[in-house]
């Protein structure tokens, strides 16, 4: 069984590699054991066949061949950790590379290392990341009651190479604590490459967590990422995924509400050009009393770019009075661009406060273009301004001006710089 599956797996991973990886990083035995357990899962998990709804529009047969054994040789990416506020670290904030945290706070990592559920059909990649996560992995722990006022920012940039990029980010925010984490991911051009980032966010009771992921890998990268948000009662989680880079991006985002009164917002901004294909799956599970989970994904698609958004809202029979809305809007800026927005609802109870979804796809309104151009802008500028306006609903949900500026800077290569609007936004 294991053998048969292993021969089919385009990204084979063996025990020797996992052990070598763990030893070369000088990891404690429990961490190695956890990797080996994940390797077992990986070996026994079927790869997506392409028949799953999530994978139907994302053929894996073109996935670049990657030698996972070479992950051991990868140089550490020059992650730029923004300064950790001193006062906060005195109160027990932990924000560092995974390996450092595993050594200094082994109990924390051991407790939170096991992977969450995630989207079912993404489980092979989750197991892969759990077994072979390497450089770039990080751990953030915010103790109960601590408000981290300034956003924590990290930029992970990989130099040119073909080694696979596999890393995990674990965020734990204890009861009534709050934090904003900005994670920017990029790489230099240099040959086809696979990136498998994996994120888990645990929001404790009453916690407030904001995660901003800026995906701008080079355009020779296939990013196959997965994220898992777990919300305890009365917590507030907002996630932002800004996708600009990579040849192909597959992102599986699951949000799991496990208590009453939790609030989840999943935001996305996609700006793609050339022949990029950005395929995002969301799975929003609602349970408990009076919880809410909304998503808003906006895509601007140039050239022959294509955005797929297959998202499911599932309202469990045990929930009551929950609210959810899933929205997906696509702006097609070229006659060869395309979008497949597929918002799915599965409602297993009649006790819902509100539930719905909306999806649109279409070109810029000529009237609007005309209006903006009549103010003295050329067509390119006018288009850029309208796209910027289209993105405003998500941008304005980011309260920190410096984070918003960072997102706009990441978007600039696609949508252009519309500096004067930043002031309006702020």
């Amino acid at each position, binding site marked *: 069984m294991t053998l048969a599956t292993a021969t089919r797996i385009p990204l084979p991973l063996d025990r020797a590699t996992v052990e070598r990886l763990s030893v070369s990083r000088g990891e404690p035995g429990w961490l190695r054991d956890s990797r080996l357990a994940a390797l077992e899962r990986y070996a026994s998990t079927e790869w997506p066949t392409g028949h799953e709804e999530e994978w139907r529009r994302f053929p894996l047969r073109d996935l670049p061949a990657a030698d996972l054994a070479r992950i051991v040789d990868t140089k550490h990416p020059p992650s730029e950790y923004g300064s950790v506020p001193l006062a906060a670290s005195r109160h027990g904030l932990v924000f560092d590379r995974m390996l450092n945290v595993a050594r200094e706070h082994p109990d924390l990592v051991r407790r939170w290392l096991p992977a969450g559920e995630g989207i079912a059909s993404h489980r092979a990649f989750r197991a892969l990341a759990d077994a072979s996560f390497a450089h770039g992995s990080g751990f953030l722990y915010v103790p109960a009651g601590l408000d981290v006022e300034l956003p924590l920012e990290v930029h992970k940039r990989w130099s040119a190479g073909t080694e696979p990029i596999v890393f995990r980010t674990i965020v734990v925010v204890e009861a009534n604590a709050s934090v904003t984490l900005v994670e920017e991911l990029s790489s230099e051009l240099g040959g086809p490459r696979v990136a498998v980032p994996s994120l888990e966010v645990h929001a404790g009771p009453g916690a407030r967590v904001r995660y901003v992921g800026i995906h701008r890998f080079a355009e020779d990268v296939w990013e196959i990422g997965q994220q898992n948000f777990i919300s305890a009662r009365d917590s507030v989680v907002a996630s932002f995924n800004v996708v600009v880079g990579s040849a192909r991006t597959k992102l599986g985002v699951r949000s799991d509400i496990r208590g009453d009164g939790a609030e989840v917002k999943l935001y996305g901004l996609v700006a793609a050009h050339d022949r990029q294909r950005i395929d995002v799956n969301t799975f929003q599970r609602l349970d408990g009393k009076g919880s809410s989970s909304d998503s808003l994904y906006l895509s601007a698609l140039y050239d022959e770019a294509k955005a797929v958004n297959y998202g499911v809202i599932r309202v469990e*029979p045990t929930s009551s009075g929950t609210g959810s809305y899933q929205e997906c809007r696509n702006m097609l800026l070229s*006659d060869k661009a395309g979008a497949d927005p597929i918002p799915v*609802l599965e*409602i297993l109870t009649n006790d819902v406060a509100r539930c719905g979804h909306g*999806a649109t796809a279409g*070109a810029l309104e000529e009237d609007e273009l005309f209006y903006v151009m009549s103010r003295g802008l050329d067509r390119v500028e006018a288009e850029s301004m309208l796209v910027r306006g289209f993105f405003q609903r998500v941008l304005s949900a980011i309260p920190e001006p410096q984070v918003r500026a960072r997102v706009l800077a990441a978007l600039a290569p696609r949508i252009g710089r519309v500096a004067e609007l930043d002031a309006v936004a702020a």
Partner: protein
Amino acid sequence: MATDVRKDIPDSYKYGWYDADAKYENVKRRGLDEAVIREISQTYKKEPQWMFERRMKAFRHYLKRPMPDWGADLSGIDFDEIYYYLRPSGKTEKSWSDVPDYVKRTFDKLGIPEAEQKYLAGVGAQYDSESVYHNIRKDLEAKGVIFMDTDSALKQHEAIVKQYFGTVIPANDNKLAALNTAVWSGGSFVWVPPGVKVDIPLQAYFRINSENAGQFERTLIIAEEGSQVHYVEGCTAPVFSTATLHSAVVEIIVKKGARVRYTTIQNWSNNVYNLVTKRAVVQEDGVMEWIDCNLGAKVTMKYPSVYLVGERAHGEVLSVAFAADDQHQDAGAKMVHAAPNTTSIITSKSISKGTGRTSYRGLVKIYPGMKRSKSTVRCDALILDPSARSDTYPYMEIDEEDVSIGHEATVSKVGEEQLFYLMSRGLAEAEATAMVVNGFIEPIVKTLPMDYAIEMNRLITLQMQGAIG
């Protein structure tokens, strides 16, 4: 009215009786093989060779294709237990008085002559596999409108049937369409000459009478340039303990500037698997409207489709689904924009009650270059009970920039305030809920001919009571 007959039936499903006297001409035999198809085509129907060959080819497709596994649970169908062809004795009659008594009693209970008395344009009736009655108003016949069962059409208008049969839904389209092509029997054939407007609806009734009878009617509607027609079908079946299969194929060709409306009131009993392929091709400036009401059946999987192949063609689907206990209505629509300036609207209203489950499953596809196409999809779901379920699976594939595509869906329950308001006016809770439900589907019901609209509201009320008490 036939209501006095219906009063005797205690079951909430008023068409749940069956006629034990029914006479069948052919030897009853379960299961399907080439011999059965040969028997249907050559022994009973004496069809031309090309049709026989079509059937055999389709049968081979049927054996090869997988069962659809992406929708409802179809594991309850035992294809070996089904009678694929049941022929009531006698030929298709044109005068009601010539129809065999047992068939007449059945259709009396269903109110068919009543409908004809109202001077409807034409009426057709099908009992198990064969059409038993087809009639059309004389003045329409004089204008050249053809309305008859498809078997008769194959004999009398072979050239037209051969020209269009299987062109909209090829035999290898899906497993059930292949099955239908292999064993089809009956159904309606409508041909409307250029420029002729049939201003009142043509009607057909379909009834399954025998346990384990499969019904595989084949309907073909051709509306020539600038013509107009409205076709209405109703379906019923008795309540048996074992599952029955209804798998029809409906093909519609809407030519330049023509307009076709196809209305279905599906009220099969709760042991019928209703797996139907319906599709229309619309040429330039043509309009196709599907009004699809699914109230009965154990499982429905039906997605009326419109292929917009000519400029400025317009497609519309209005869908109502009501799933009570143990029912799964997996219904929806498909709009394929294959020409510029085409427009489509899908409106779906679904209600789930008790342990019922409704699923809206739809596709809007815009091919590259189909500029200025517009599509709007609107799905509303009402969930009446905690154990009921509602799903929405709206697929959209947009490969053209210069378009405007929108999809909106809402899911809600009957509001406490609404109920309180109505109950404070003296209505019982069940009546109040039924009233809210009727209000919910009102936008679609009002597009039905009057008698069907009344029927629809009554069926909804029955569905509500069935589960309440």
